């Protein structure tokens, strides 16, 4: 690890202004950033720790919308009675991220800002039609995740909370990468009124929706409706763990399992 300055501001405004100078990085949970820095693959000259900002904390249900503060730890979301009651699939997803150390440190804001192609939260945000609230604006999940490790966030923009509309039914089916236990393929499905969403993480360079599956499920929300529907392997990742063909196959399997569990 190279040397860096450490800041712990107590307001979003201070955090934002600190980020204006030099090569600063926001520290939300650090579960990707810190290992990368330890391996000397990243060398920010300053870290701006967001853990001291009260406004980024908190989980509450407001009407039919679940508000989750950006600095909520995975373990907080997993164990929250509010989340478990409102969107049990989201609590279960958070409880299966990484390992206990990661869940004790990693945050929802940090995870989605990083937009790792194999992370779980992007699938939940896209699969539930979430809205990402920042210190500047509101961004729909459909517009937020733009590419591999890329998001719609601008320089200095800080995620403050994520708003999840309550679905009628939802579930997340994850197929672990055997080594890292990131999602080799993870499929989040939800149904809210006539709106059905199928979001896939792990399989491609960025989380994506499967329109053909959503159409079929909006006619009848049953695993059987997905028979014969597949995603094209051509757009998917291929690596030492899984070929694109295997990933494409798993998208179908995990989607059916998610629907069955929803």
């Amino acid at each position: 690890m190279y040397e860096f300055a450490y800041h712990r501001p107590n307001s979003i405004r201070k955090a934002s202004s600190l980020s204006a100078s030099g090569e600063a990085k926001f520290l939300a949970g650090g579960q990707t950033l810190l290992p990368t820095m330890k391996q000397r693959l990243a060398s920010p000259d300053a870290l701006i720790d967001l853990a001291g900002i009260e406004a980024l904390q908190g989980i509450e249900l407001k009407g039919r919308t679940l508000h989750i503060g950006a600095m909520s730890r995975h373990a907080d979301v997993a164990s929250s009675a509010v989340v478990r009651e409102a969107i049990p699939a989201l609590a279960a997803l958070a409880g299966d991220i990484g390992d206990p150390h990661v869940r004790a440190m990693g945050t929802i804001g940090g995870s989605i800002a990083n937009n790792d192609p194999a992370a779980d939260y992007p699938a939940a945000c896209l699969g539930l039609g979430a809205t990402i609230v920042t210190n500047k604006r509101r961004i729909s999940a459909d517009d937020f995740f733009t590419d591999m490790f890329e998001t719609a966030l601008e320089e200095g923009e800080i995620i403050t909370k994520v708003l999840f509309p309550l679905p009628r039914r939802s579930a997340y089916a994850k197929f672990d990468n055997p080594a890292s236990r990131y999602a080799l393929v993870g499929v989040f499905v939800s149904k809210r009124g006539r709106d059905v969403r199928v979001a896939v993480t792990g399989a491609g360079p960025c989380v994506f929706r499967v329109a053909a599956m959503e159409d079929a499920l909006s006619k009848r929300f049953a695993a059987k409706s997905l028979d014969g529907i597949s995603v094209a392997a051509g757009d998917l990742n291929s690596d030492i763990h899984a070929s694109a063909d295997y990933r494409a196959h798993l998208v179908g399997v995990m989607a059916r399992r998610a629907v069955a569990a929803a």
Partner: protein
Amino acid sequence: MSNTGIGARVARLEDQRFITGAGKYTDDVNVAGQTYAAFARSEHAHATVKSVDSKAALAVPGVIAVFTGADLEKDAIGPLPAGWMIHSKDGSPMNAPGHPCLVQGKARYVGDPVAVVIGESLAAARAGAEALAIDYDVHEAVTDPAKARSSATQLHDSAPKNTCYEWELGDKAATAAAFKSAKHVTKLSLSNNRLVPNPMEPRSALGNYDAGTDSFTLYTTSQNPHVARLVMSAFLNVAPEHKLRVIAPDVGGGFGSKIYVYPEEVVCTWASKKVGRPIKWTADRTEAFITDAHGRDHVTNAEIAMDERGKILGLKVHTTANLGGYPSLFATCVPTYLYATLLSGQYDIPAIYAEVDAVYTNTVPVDAYRGAGRPEATFLVERIVEIASREMGIDPATFRKRNFIKKFPHQTPVIMNYDAGDYAASLNKACELIDYKGFGKRRREAARRGKLRGIGFSCYIEACGIAPSAAVGSLGAGVGLWESAEVRVNPTGNVEILTGSHSHGQGHETTFAQLVSDRLGIGIDQVTIVHGDTDKVQFGMGTYGSRSGAVGMTAISKALDKVEAKAKKIAAHLLEASESDIEFKDGAFSVSGTDKKVTFPEVSLNAYVAHKFPSDEIEPGLKEGAFHDPSNFTFPAGCHICEIEIDPETGVCEIADWVAVDDFGNVINPMIVEGQVHGGIAQGVGQALMEGVSYDSSGQLMTGSFMDYCMPRADNLPSFKVDTTVTPCPSNPLGIKGCGEAGAIASPPAVINAITDAIGHENITMPATPQVVWQAARQGAARAAE
């Protein structure tokens, strides 16, 4: 049996300090004035180092010095040698170029150390290493052992066709004749996947030169500190043996990878004199992946011949073994004398012929890893036997029993002379424990749940208690493989055992103390086991090859015999009786037929007070040593049965049940033995289902961290059913055989045999990851549909 003696389930004495963080490992040792080393490593798998410009590195604040291979050459610090001579079939000696501790000329794998930077802090050293300007001339790399011999790329000028040796064992003509008379021949091609050992504690070294005594101390993560000292002294010219103290304190696992001398410990020791300061280096996990000797990596074609009843007539094997970029210390013996000599398995096979070509590739050197050669042999034998039984339509248990060796001693056609065993006993017991008869029902029940259930056998044998010296010497070993012990009885009657073996997870502090407790009738808390320091302990050979019980404890036992004999003499004087009337039992010497007795501590005190016996007859003191060189290897054997359920939709394998019935001879501590079996099975399951090194064609390691290299975890494993059968080992007085490697040796074929049973064909490779199994299950379903 006392509650702390032989056979007692004593909780491990050393665990208190290990699990409370009170262990003292090499990286925990700090000395005044200490500096830090960072190694600049080749980023290329095959490249000539044209120049190393250290100007910028030396300008980094806190950087003290930079050394390269040229500096080692100037001081005549030799390359790391190969310690076991193998001759090719044409009689020529192997081509075994040494491994310079810092590159001299060419780097031959990604991670080969090119230069070292010494800094006041680790950060300074690392910054310095990054600032080095290394100019490379990059060459084509070869990483696939199957392509090494025909590759246009040559690693070493002295090893044409990238070949170390072309070796053979067995009777070629007799084997050919056996195949001619065969009614059925089964063929198998396989690769035995390359593994990274990954002990919990990464390697570490702290070299310290003392100008006052002109001597060195090296703290290092070693399984055999005396051997490390010998190699560094006799072959590397670092320092004479009496001027080099090697200390291997608590060591957090080795699995073989800490047997060998590595460049970093040599450089830290040598350079500590150059800079006049102690130098510490500790690998991070990334460095461990690209520098610790890897394991396995064979490509093999084999054929087995049977008569019409399934009686095995002969076995033919051709293996290409990947040695990596250089021959590591014991690498050359692993695919030869630790592999082909076990190809008879538990079976009476009249004729065997094996050929092994060992090749160099642009990969991390490969050496012994838990089991070392014997897992490769067992995987081959137990796979081909299973396939043969399936092809011939004979129940796999029946097929094995029909071919088991039943009379002992048994001379195999491949050197080994098996001394004792009862292979049917362990197979029968294992079948009973897993309810083999009920398997069909379990398979049908699984099918109703959409799962494919399979059962796999593995009847393994291994040669361990690695020794005897004369035998290994005749096979090319550069060292003897006896073991040493010294028993120091203190005046107050407690005991220090100095052993030449080394504990790095095996629990010697407990099992060795149990032996002493049993023999001397004192509590195990009265015994201390001393190991791992060349200044304290007499020369010893260290721990590997499941040898510390069979060889190391026998040495202790022999020294205890001498202690008891002398103590009897002293007791006779104390009791004013004839020595021949003295009996020693439960910690007391008594005069037979009387109630006169004296306790062991009383005798100990009198041995040092020395008032009550004539000094011309008996020397004062109570301290005895022994060296033990056994007459044979030991031959643990047993049967493991694995049941697996496959989800055909995803290829995920779940181990549904596991039975291990092992014959380790007499057992000192059943709990420690079970722990060794559990850990060994976990490693074997890792090899079968998860672990596998992957290099790309340019020689970059694709599995360089736990993100990509999959280690087995607790939730991958079932609760094992572990049991034993016992045929005592005849070649040592304790009757023990060794248990450290058995689980890793036995388990891979049990897993793969279960998977292939479930999917209905044999075409599968290790590691059988979900993707591999999914594809294989689809092939199986397609075949079944035809």
